[in-house]
């Protein structure tokens, strides 16, 4: 089956979703209460802030977006309220309605960069939409629509025949950089686009989805044929200047996003898996020019990405040790819960 037909199917499902949710009311979430509890205990501060412990305890719009999404998946409306209250009050301050991306507990004002991070905005709007539909909250849906429209207006750009998602409103466009526009392929949160189309209908979401797919097909750098974290779309796609030329911490979540969005484009998924698979499911970060390994990641959250690919592609069930969630660091643990949630909801055979 091709990617696009999968998408059509996914869109079909999406239409059916509201009823599905109505039926699912009262059911527990796809993130278990225990897992969510241990995640919160480690990464959610009492004031509603998701703490990135791997980055000096700062917070960012991406973290708040993940927190909101996990709260929906854990079916915890109270935690969603908590995280949303913080997010709106502390980050959703920009004139254009997008979130300031970076927040530090030790500085005043706490926002230390007013620029946005588009994946953070997408995650927040996506989670708000799901929450609004699940708990019948018009205020969530209205807030989601506002952010989604702003994402379309401020960060979606046509360039050289491509529909691109600028990583931030400032600093990445053709006018801002010699090699601009520069994009981050891992900012394409594929599962969010059809959902956002419900609160802010626009053909651009589909264009983003198709453009993102085409871009991933084309991003085959170096001997491992892997995408880079940061890509210049100035001419032909190539690693952007001034960023590490690597398949790194950003790009490693691309396959997880793909499977969560329902992709079974085995050619693409297999290529990505081969490029990052180490021993025992370790995840390899690599130099996209030379293919040499930059880091071998053995956190179960990172490994999970490899294991879920193995299950999707080859029907290999997940190993026991990654079925159990035990929080380590904010980022891999977030990916871990997103992966487990997907397995529970869509791939019970993997568990």
């Amino acid at each position: 089956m091709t990617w696009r037909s999968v998408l059509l199917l996914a869109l079909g499902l999406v239409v059916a979703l509201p009823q599905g949710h109505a039926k699912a009311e009262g059911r527990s979430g796809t993130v278990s209460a225990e897992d969510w509890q241990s995640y919160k205990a480690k990464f959610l501060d009492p004031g509603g802030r998701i703490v990135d412990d791997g980055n000096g305890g700062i917070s960012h719009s991406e973290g708040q977006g993940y927190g909101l999404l996990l709260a929906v998946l854990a079916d915890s409306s109270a935690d969603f309220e908590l995280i949303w209250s913080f997010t709106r009050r502390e980050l959703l301050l920009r004139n254009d309605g997008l979130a300031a991306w970076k927040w530090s507990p030790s500085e005043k004002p706490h926002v230390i960069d007013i620029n946005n991070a588009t994946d953070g905005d997408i995650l927040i709007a996506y989670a708000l939409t799901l929450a609004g539909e699940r708990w019948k909250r018009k205020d969530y849906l209205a807030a989601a629509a506002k952010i989604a429209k702003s994402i379309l207006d401020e960060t979606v750009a046509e360039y050289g025949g491509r529909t691109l998602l600028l990583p931030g409103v400032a600093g990445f466009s053709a006018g801002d950089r010699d090699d601009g526009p520069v994009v981050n392929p891992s900012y394409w949160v594929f599962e969010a686009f059809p959902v956002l189309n419900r609160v802010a209908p626009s053909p651009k979401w589909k264009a983003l989805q198709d453009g993102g797919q085409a871009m991933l097909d084309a991003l085959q750098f170096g001997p491992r044929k892997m995408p880079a974290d940061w890509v210049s779309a100035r001419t032909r796609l190539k690693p952007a200047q001034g960023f590490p030329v690597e398949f790194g911490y950003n790009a490693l979540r691309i396959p997880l996003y793909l499977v969560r969005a329902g992709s079974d484009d085995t050619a693409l998924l297999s290529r990505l898996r081969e490029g990052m698979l180490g021993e025992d499911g370790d995840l390899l970060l690599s130099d996209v020019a030379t293919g040499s390994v930059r880091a071998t990641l053995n956190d179960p959250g990172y490994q999970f990405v490899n294991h879920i690919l193995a299950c999707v592609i080859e029907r290999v069930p997940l190993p026991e040790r990654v079925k159990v969630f035990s929080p380590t660091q904010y980022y891999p643990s977030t990916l871990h819960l997103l992966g487990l949630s997907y397995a529970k909801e869509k791939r019970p055979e993997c568990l």
Partner: protein
Amino acid sequence: MKSSTVVIAGIMFTAVGIAGFADDGLLRRNLGAASGASGSGEGVQEASFGLVDKGARSTVPEYQQVAQNTQQPAAGTTRPQAAAPVVDESALRYFASKGDTARLQAEISRLRALYPDWTPPKDPLAVPRNKDVQLETMWQLYSEGRYAEVRKAIAERQTAETGWKPPADLLERLNVAEARARLVNSSDLKQYETVIEVAAGTPSLLTCSEVDVLWRVADAFVQTDRPDRARDAYLYVLKNCESAPERLATVQKAVSGLPYDMAQELLAFERTAPGGVAEFESLRDDLARRFVAEGDGDGKLAVDPKYIQRLERLVETEGLASDALLLGWYQLRRDNMAPAEQWFRRAHDKEDSASASQGLALTLIARKAHEDAEKVLYPWRDASQDAKATYFAATANLLAIEPPVALSEEVLARIAQETTKGRDPATAQQFGWYARAMEQPATAAQWFTTALRWKPDDEPSAYGLALSLSQLGDTAGVVEIQRQWAGRSERIARLGETEEERRDAIARQQQPPVREPVPATAVQRTEPVVVTRQPAPQTTTRYVTEQPVAVARQPQRTVRSATGCRTSINPAQLSPQAALNRGWCLMDLNRPLEAAEAFEVALQAPASQMREDAAYGQSLAYLRAGLTNKAAVAATRSKQSRGRVEELQSAILADRAIAAFDAKRYRETLIFLDQLGQISTQRTDLMVLRGYAYLNLKRYAEARRIFEAVAATGNRDAQRALADVSKAQEIWPNK
């Protein structure tokens, strides 16, 4: 009871008025939703809606009017159902239990305002505690500012207890508190649209108890160019709020952000204390300074004489140079030069500064005391762009005086140095005329050339250069200038029109006295003298009105000594500025390849003007070295002025045409010449080249037509070429 109702109602009304400016529609929706959700009794709803309607009608909130209106509802006439409102006393009980008397009192006032018929408990501290422990916790979190946690607690309880609803009072307070925090955060981050949006959505924030919020909203309006709305916010405070320090601070903020007229509007609401002292008296001196300063920037602003007089008195009593300066600029802007000079002198003598000297110099220039102006400003010439511009206005004017003023060596030397350092084309041009008046045509030619380098479209300099070259006998140089300015300057074209005139001129100009040694960079042309009898150029007053462009960036020719770059060094170690200087120096020594390297280093400069100069220099260097293609590349490495672009393109195309011809690629030669024809008038030598290209392509008719046209101007090459065409055609039938 009545009075507090009036105050609150007035506040709400005016708040609605202010917010209404931001977005009437949004506001109405929001208020509707808020009162619908509050469930606090219909009386309140009615009052809110009534206020909104009035707010929507009136653009400027009228406190008086509202006060009258709301006194009646208090008497019960428009509040038929206010008999049994359900008063939510949970906050009251919470604050009482904590012994928080300040908050308790505020809550009592608030409830009284909302429910005029409500009677507060006799001993509020004896009010029984909330029995609802969870609610108690929510109030506690709220009072600690932990709003997100209140949200969480509410949601948790709603999940656990179906049908439970939080008290409307708690929800409303939470909304307002969160909005306040968000507004303050947006304001701190200069996200002014968000500030206004939040304020519009939360009118209950805009009250006297939140003056800081009102200030922030007003500031957001100022920052987004909506001063009238800012004025309304400040007006609201002055009309309604009682706190003396806040009123004073409001005026201070308002006058710093609002234009003069609006500031006067606000000051009309000043109150007089029982002792007869006006409440803003302590601000008077600063207000006078502030308003006169605004008059400094806007010559059309009519500042009330009382402020001028107050400031004049201040100069007498306090003697601050800064106050005298304010008055000086105020008068200068109104062309009252005599008082302006007097105030500037006062400031200058008291405490000299760039501003004082600049102002004084401007008044001196105005009365044509240019020499004094130059002297006053010289020490401050580098203080600011403005000071520099004024200095060059003085120097250009000083040199332009007719008959020329005899200036000391010292003054001339320092003006020359500043001119070259500051690259001021106006003064350079006037130096040219000054040199001509002093009968130093070679120096004049040098200055005009310099002026043209800085300002390629400076026709008077081109004209002056042509005159000087003509005087020096450089016919080719004159012709070249005429070619460059063909169609752009009548007087340059007509220079040296007839033989008779030329001979007359030569006769009159037997020995051009050259008193100064010509620097190595001077015009290197030594052909027979061609002189014009054009009248002396009228340039003297030109720069009195026209401010010279003075951007100090780079020293140039006359400063560079040819010895400065004789030693070989690696230019990569130089700063961009030093590399640029070295590039020009090497060009003077005719070492173009080394110059190109130096310019390459200067091309890394952050300043675009320097990059432009470097690209220009490198292009010229490659042209001189015969590396036309490299010159073409260099020319594109930075944006260039139109004059330079045409100059470089013409030179590049001419070189390419010649190179193509030498390589016997005649069609290509014609293409380059066609391109050249599109950007500049054809040089005769290139027309001859075109003719020979035709000839070699055996396009005899075209070759002949060109040669005939050029030969008609007396061009010997063309005449010889005509013979060549004939010869070629003669040979042809024999073959």
